[in-house]
């Protein structure tokens, strides 16, 4: 089981309590699709992803970014049982969506960059460490049911 210090729990809760999902979600997914263009393979039905401008103005990307970000809520609420909390979503991403689990890590990195940009210097090294640890646990849980 993952051990969390009080400081780590506080850092995570603090980030989520100030999180503007409608802003950060779209920004993170757009950045992921631009910085790691091979991720676009999973979004064939999203229309025009032909260049950065198209991705930045695509309403389906924006909407889905919000969905994905809310997907982290269950981890934040179940920090002591993230592994089991994501069992079903892991099966979904593996069996139905066929997403290479390495992509979870790429999106997590983009999310960290976007949150860093929003929080500025408040995103201290210690808070970055807690946040990236949290995302690493989620990423690991999402990849667990692949076989």
């Amino acid at each position, binding site marked *: 089981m993952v051990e969390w210090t009080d400081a780590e729990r506080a850092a995570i809760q603090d980030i989520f309590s100030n999180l503007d999902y409608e802003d950060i979600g779209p920004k993170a997914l*757009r*950045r992921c699709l*631009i*910085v790691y263009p091979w991720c676009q393979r999973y979004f064939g039905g999203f229309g025009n992803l032909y260049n*950065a401008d198209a*991705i*930045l103005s695509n309403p389906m990307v924006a909407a889905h970014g919000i969905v994905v970000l809310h997907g982290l809520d269950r981890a934040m609420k179940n920090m002591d049982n993230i592994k089991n909390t994501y069992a079903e979503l892991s099966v979904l991403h593996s069996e139905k969506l066929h997403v290479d689990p390495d992509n979870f890590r790429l999106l997590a*990195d983009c999310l*960290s*960059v*976007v949150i*860093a*940009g*929003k*929080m*500025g*210097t408040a*995103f*201290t*090294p*210690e808070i*970055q*460490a807690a946040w*990236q640890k949290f995302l690493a646990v989620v990423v690991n849980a999402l990849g667990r049911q692949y076989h």
Partner: protein
Amino acid sequence: MSLTAKDKATVQAFWGKIAGKAEEIGGDALSRMLVVYPQTKTYFSHWDDLSPGSAPVMKHGKTVMDGVGFAVGQINDLTAGLLTLSELHAFQLRIDPANFKLLSHCILVVLAIKFPKEFTPEVHVSMDKFLSALAIALAEKYR
């Protein structure tokens, strides 16, 4: 995933804007790396203070970013341009090349913090590609 002409132009233009803060960027990135990826501290057991912003960390952050700045100038042939630095890292420092991407990620985080408007997704992708190419050139002489 080699650097296109557009990537090179983007990196050079962005570097022009940030070079003045290279020392701060390097120190902040290195500070973060040591906290976020504690295994990297194993390379600095000879320093007395590994805490974020400490004197040895800031000094070394400057050294590292001076290297990145040098690499920007060698962007048209990183392998040739970074030969000496590669030999240093391969034969003397012997830093596991897996660590290059950890520092690269921290540099990108610092750029997002210090230049929120300029560090657009397009700049991000070119910088990420550049730092990856830099890491490959740095690992050239390892084996």
